[in-house]
Every structure is written in structure tokens, then in C-alpha cells.
């Protein structure tokens, strides 16, 4: 009896694994027309921590969201929602039961994309002309530029984050987290980060923090405040 049961179980397991191999991934592309006004309402919750300008913190605890590509923002929200990107505090805020479905995510991402960028983001400690800057430039051009772009402009279509305007400490912290396995990212990025040592990564982040943000993308001054939430 017991043997029969085990046999049956074995059969079931085999059947199951055969089935799994037969299953192919189905990818669905869905289009959403964002409602920016509704996104503003949703963003009022985000702004409680990220602040109304979404400019991030110079100490690296919050990223600058303003100016980031919509597809990149969307990917982060979805990654945090399903646990791929670990962020305990963000997690409950991006669940369907709180923020809503893809439409609401699209709305808020579109709203964020309308915000002007921080004209005074935090740069790394090594300005152009220093040895560390040049080392960072070399590492960046060799390992980072092919995806993130020569000027850190990223690529919305291909979901490569824009690095222009990102706070130095936020970038270096993320690189640390990726290297130590606390953050899982695209395999190509994962591989590059393993290729470089912590110092090289720090220098590359330093170099990226000096990319100029196009004038037209920035707020007029660092004292600009988002009028939607005054």
C-alpha cells in the first residue's frame, strides 16, 4: 500500500515536471493612456515621504525620481510590488490593494515624469581633474556607457535608468547592494558589478554624478517648490 502510494507520488511528480517543461512563458503587452491628473492624486501619497518635488536626498536615502524614464519607474514599482526589489517600507504602498492596478501605476509614473529635476543634485567627492574622476571615467566608458549612455541619459525604450541628476550616494549605495546580493537586477548589470571592485564602482558612480543635466529638464532654482502641493 505504502509502496503503491510512493509510486503514485513519483508518477505525479514526474508528470508535474514534464508539464512544467512544456509550459512556455506568455508575455502580454498592454497599453495604458495615463491620466496625469489622477496621477497627481496618487502622488500625494508618495510625496509624504518622497516630498512633492521627488528630488531625493543628497545622503542617498531617497533617489531623485524627477526626470527618470517612465519605463524605469514602472519597472521599479513592479519589482518592489512582487518582491524582486526588496524595499520593506515601499512594499505595502505599491500593492494593488493600496495604489491600484496598472492604470494607477501608469498615472503616477506619468505625473512624476512631468516634474522638473533638482538643479543641485549631490555630486561625488572627486571633481573633474582628479585621479579618481579619471578612473571613474575609464570604468564608466568601458563598462557602463553602452547601456546607460555616454552622458548617462539611459534609454526609456530599453528600460535603462537615466543616471543624469541622480545623487552620488544613492548610486554608490545601490551598487554596494547589488554587489553584496541585497539587490537583484538585470543579469547584464549584475555581471558588470561583479566585474568591478568596490572602489571602481565608487569612482564610476562619482563620474556619473558629474553628468550635466540638460537645462530644460531642471527647475529654475533649488528653492522651487511643486505648486501642486503647496
Amino acid at each position: 500500500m505504502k509502496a503503491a502510494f510512493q509510486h503514485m507520488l513519483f508518477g505525479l511528480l514526474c508528470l508535474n515536471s514534464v508539464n512544467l517543461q512544456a509550459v512556455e512563458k506568455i508575455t502580454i503587452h498592454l497599453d495604458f493612456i495615463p491620466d496625469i491628473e489622477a496621477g497627481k492624486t496618487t502622488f500625494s501619497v508618495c510625496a509624504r515621504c518622497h516630498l512633492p518635488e521627488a528630488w531625493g536626498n543628497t545622503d542617498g536615502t531617497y533617489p531623485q525620481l524627477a526626470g527618470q524614464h517612465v519605463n524605469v519607474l514602472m519597472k521599479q514599482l513592479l519589482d518592489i510590488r512582487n518582491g524582486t526589489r526588496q524595499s520593506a517600507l515601499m512594499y505595502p504602498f505599491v500593492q494593488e490593494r493600496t495604489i491600484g492596478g496598472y492604470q494607477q501605476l501608469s498615472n503616477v509614473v506619468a505625473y512624476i515624469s512631468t516634474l522638473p529635476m533638482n538643479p543641485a543634485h549631490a555630486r561625488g567627492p572627486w571633481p573633474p581633474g582628479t585621479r579618481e574622476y579619471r578612473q571613474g571615467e575609464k570604468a564608466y566608458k568601458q563598462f557602463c556607457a553602452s547601456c546607460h549612455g555616454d552622458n548617462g541619459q539611459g534609454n526609456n525604450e530599453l528600460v535603462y535608468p537615466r543616471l543624469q541628476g541622480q545623487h552620488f550616494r544613492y548610486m554608490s549605495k545601490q551598487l554596494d547592494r547589488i554587489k553584496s546580493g541585497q539587490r537583484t537586477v538585470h543579469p547584464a548589470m549584475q555581471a558588470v558589478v561583479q566585474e568591478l571592485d568596490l572602489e571602481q564602482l565608487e569612482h564610476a558612480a562619482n563620474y556619473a554624478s558629474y553628468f550635466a543635466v540638460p537645462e530644460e529638464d531642471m527647475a529654475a532654482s533649488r528653492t522651487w517648490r511643486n505648486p501642486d502641493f503647496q
Partner: protein
Amino acid sequence: MGNSDNNGLSRRSFLKAGMALGTLSAAAVSSQAVAAQASLESTAKPPPAIRKLLNEATLPRATGARVVVIGGGWSGLAMAKYLKIHNPAFDVVLVDRRPEFISFPASNCWLADQVNLDFLTHSYIDAAKSHDYLFLNATVLGFDRELKKVFTSNGFINYDYMVLAPGIEYDYRRIGVDDPVAQMQLYNNYPGGFVNSSELITIKRKLHTFKGGTFILNVPNGEYRCTAAPYERACMAAAIFKKRRIKARILLLDMNADIRIKKQGFAKAFSSLYADYINYLPSSEISRIDIDEKTVSTDFDDYAFDDAIIYPPVRASSLLEDAGIANMKTAQKTANTDPYKYHVIGDEYVYVTGDSRSQPFSKGGHTANSEAQYVAEVIAAHALGKEVRWRSPQTMCFSAVDINPLQAMSIITFYKFNKQTKKFEFDRTHMMEDWNVEGGQASLAWAEGMYRDMFYR
């Protein structure tokens, strides 16, 4: 109470020691202390519980530098987790005398039945398991910083680093109640609801069974725990009374000259939602409380009450005194610590964080969590002979204003050090004082996220 027990024990030891030595001559044993020592060394066998204290606590052998975190509140829980993240080689032990964690943040929502007790309750075992440290359910009894030992009810632990995050105690003296027995009676009749979870359960029962009349709540002065909570609690108490349709008056005696935080929001709530329930009385410095007569006296008036929640001003936990690091001249009896690196001046292996810190940051959960993330990094760097750049704690603070549906407002603030005044002050602050349903939902998402950070993976 602890003192009288000790005296009783040493008196018995004295008699035993005297008899064992075969002499009752006063000259032979010149002091109680000598006698007590003699009794320990020679004949009198201390009870098993006492002997246990002198043994090492049962813990797996330390695999790396051992960091003992005292206090499993919002600071200690984040500390234990992030110490392991920043240095996985650390052997981290979190010590708390409570068997489980009940959250004080979001507890005002629980008073008004907006969340259940499961929402607030979490397991230290889960926290330790999720984040790869050890939890020791024990009471801390004392320290030997020379030998780097902490004594607990389960035995002593040798530490390489120690983080003290023991939180606050009530300071009844500052509302004119000096007698320890009177303090105890006041605590047992009108608990403040900011230290022990039994206080919260009592408060909930009080609010849901109050028959009507005058209910006194107060706001302490000084740097008390959770600046907005007494005002928020007044709103929740009023919402409960309103829902129960009882004829009740809340006297909110504020020992401060004005609402301390989210002033516009709370003032509007008191006048627009709870005008029939809340009398807000600023500058009401409590000078006397008569438990028998049920009156609270301020410099201006005496207020009779039917029931009350008395929240006295607070001070740092007396464990800092036990560790010999409390500066008794400071208002809150805090330790002399490095304002940036948090270690005790003269001892780079002992740190003080959370609500017993000496820096004037807001005493609250989010502040403690963000601070602990930074200090954990400081300690991990110290072990490698490195330093970490200072960063500000963040104070994210939601306040519930109305219920069914829950509505809340929020504030976020950061700090900076003013080099001229040599004091910390507020940096960028963002208020969202228009309370709404989104705020209510966000406040619960915030709490859930914080519990997730501390207890789960």
C-alpha cells in the same frame, strides 16, 4: 520594590553568615556589605535564580564579534537587522524582557478599532529568524563595562559592542508626584499608554466603557515620546465617544503653550469634528494630582475628572544609570554620547540610540528606525577601523484624525546641525495637514512597511 527585596535578602544573608561564623559579635562583621559578601563566599547558598545570574547565558558560541543590543523596540529591532546587513560576520544578540512585540505606533488606530491587535503584534522569534540574529528573552540587570559584560535574568553575556536602546521611563516628579507609592498608584489607575502594552489595553477598555462625564488627557512638556500622539489620541478618544453617543467631555490639558506639531490640522480637527467633545487647554502645567479626590490641579485651576489618562513627562531609561553612563544633570538623564557617532564618550564600544539618545530628535518609531540604520553602519565601520559620514534621521509621522473611514495627516522632517549654536535643528519639513482617506490608508501602509522591515523578509 527592587530595593526592599535586596535589603531583605542581605539581611537574611547577614544572619546566616553570622551564625555560620559562630559569632554574633558586631566587631567581627562590621557592615552588612561584608557579611553579605562572606555569605556568598562561604556557606549560604543563594537561591537558584541568583546563581543563574552568575553563569553565562545559554547562547550558541559567538562566531564573530558579538554585538549585544539591549531593547527590542523600534531602534533595537532595526539595529539588530542592519548590523547583520552591514557586517554579516557580527554575532548579534537582541535582548528584551517582553515576550512579544506590540506596536505603539498605530496603536491609537487600534484604540478606535481601525486595525486589530494582530496588526500591531509581532514575534521577536520571527524577527531574529528573518534577519539572522539571536533573540534572548531576558531582563537586563546590570553591566560591567570594564569586563564588557551585561548581566541578565538568564545569565551574563560577554560583548564586543553593546547598543543600549532601552527607551524611556515616566518621570512623575515633573508633574509634582514625588512619592514612589503615589507614582505607582497613579500609574495603575491612570496609565499613560507610552511604555507598556498593558497600559494600552487598559486605555482601550476605559474608552469603550466610559459612562460619560469628564475624561482628562494631557500633553506632557519636554521631549516626550511621539510628539503628535497625545493630540491624535484625543481625536481617537473623541471619535469613540461620538460613535458611542455618550455625553462626555475630554479636557486636553496641554502643558505646552500651544499644539506642538501639526498645529493647523489638530486645531481644525478639535473645532470642526470634535467641538462637542474636546476642550483644548494650553499652558496647563500640571502641579498636583489627587487620586482620592479625582482632581488635577494646574497653576490656574483645579479640574475634577471621572476618568483620565495621565502621560507624565519622560526621561531616559534608568538602565543608562545602571550602566554608569547617565548624566543626571540633563533634563532626561541621558548619556554623554558623541552626537554624530552615538558612542559613549570614552567608550567606543557602547552606543546609545532610540528614545534614550541624548540628541533632541523626535522620539518616535520612524526616527528610531532610520537612525538605527545609520548607527549600525557606524558600528560596522568602526569594527573595520573606518568611519561613516553622518546622515540625518528622518521623522515620518502620521496622525489619525477621524475614523470609519480612517483619515490621517502626516509630516516628514529631517535634521541638521547648526554649527553656530552647536545644536541640532529641523531641516526640510513637509507637512500634509489636510487629513483624508488616502492619508489614513498611507498611515497603515507605513506601519505595515515598518513591521515588514523589522520582522519579515
